[in-house]
């Protein structure tokens, strides 16, 4: 499926008009993107390092996952909203950028992983799960979100 029409639409949207006309807006929104990344990344790390029994070992992992998941959603929402705005400024350039495609693939994988696998799996009592399942979920989660962040930074270099 060719996404060219989507990028073309974004390139001529109102968002693009704003982001292209006011260069400073792009920079300010990009800063929110970074803050969202820090918030989201922190929640991923605290939750997954608890599943790996490295951090907050004296707290029930169910409680840690429950508390971090809510703020993960806040960070992800900030990142997606600011990300769409940033993309509108350079939409046609991003269409041809392989690192952007990699980031979007990793992001889609991450969202599906969190909401279709990680959250339902960890919703119940963790002691009923195989410890290796918890470890695999944690390592997979860290790897996916690291890929999202690293490929995102690399868009600017490629």
């Amino acid at each position, binding site marked *: 499926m060719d996404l060219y029409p989507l990028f073309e639409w974004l390139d001529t949207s109102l968002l693009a008009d704003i982001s292209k006309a006011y260069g400073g807006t792009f920079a300010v929104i990009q*800063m929110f993107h970074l803050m969202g*990344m820090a*918030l989201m990344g922190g*929640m991923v790390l*605290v939750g997954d*390092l608890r599943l790996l029994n490295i951090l*907050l070992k004296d707290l029930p992992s169910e409680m840690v996952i429950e508390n971090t998941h809510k703020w993960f959603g806040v960070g992800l929402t900030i990142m997606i909203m600011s990300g769409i705005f940033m993309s509108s400024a350079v939409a046609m350039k991003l269409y041809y950028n392989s690192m952007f495609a990699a980031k979007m693939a990793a992001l889609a994988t991450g969202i599906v992983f969190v909401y279709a696998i990680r959250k339902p799996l960890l919703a119940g009592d963790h002691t009923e799960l195989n410890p290796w399942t918890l470890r695999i979920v944690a390592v997979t989660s860290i790897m996916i979100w690291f890929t999202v962040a*690293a490929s995102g930074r690399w868009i600017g270099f490629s």
Partner: protein
Amino acid sequence: MLNETLLSLARWLDSQSWSTQIHESIYLYSWIETTHVLSLMIFLGMLCVIDLRMLGWAFDKVPASTIANRLDKPMMIGFAIMLISGFLLYYAIPVRTTQSIWFRTKVILLILAGINAFLFRAKMQASASSWDLDPIPPKRIRVGAGLSLLLWSGVVITGRAIAYDWFDCRRELPYMMYWAAGCVDEMAAFQ
């Protein structure tokens, strides 16, 4: 006088071959910058969890001191990575960075955030026993946590802004901006 000294130091760093090699390397500078940005997730991410607890917005059933003590070590590891990679980024482009208003603001905010963290920790250790289990800590603690988030957000924002050349010394700026950026030699970054 201070600006001349800082610029001389920057020029000395700039004259070193390692500085040039990092700056001109195809991948090394990018990797250092990526490390610097990604370590935000460790340092600021942990800090967010601690401050959200102090604001009463997360982990409200867990003693505040437990969250602060357990996350302190990974947070400091993240800070150390940020500090080392940040120094290397400065070392790679010292002259322009020294005369950057954003870099200067970032350093000031870093110092303020450090002072706030020190005072916050002292205040917490002195009084935590009386409110440690409270879902919402006392106002003075919440103010400290809010200030911490604001100051560190400022550090991130000004850090990102260093890359933009809006207020570089070579540009036509109000005198106030030249003063704040410590512009000694307007064309130094090009020499």
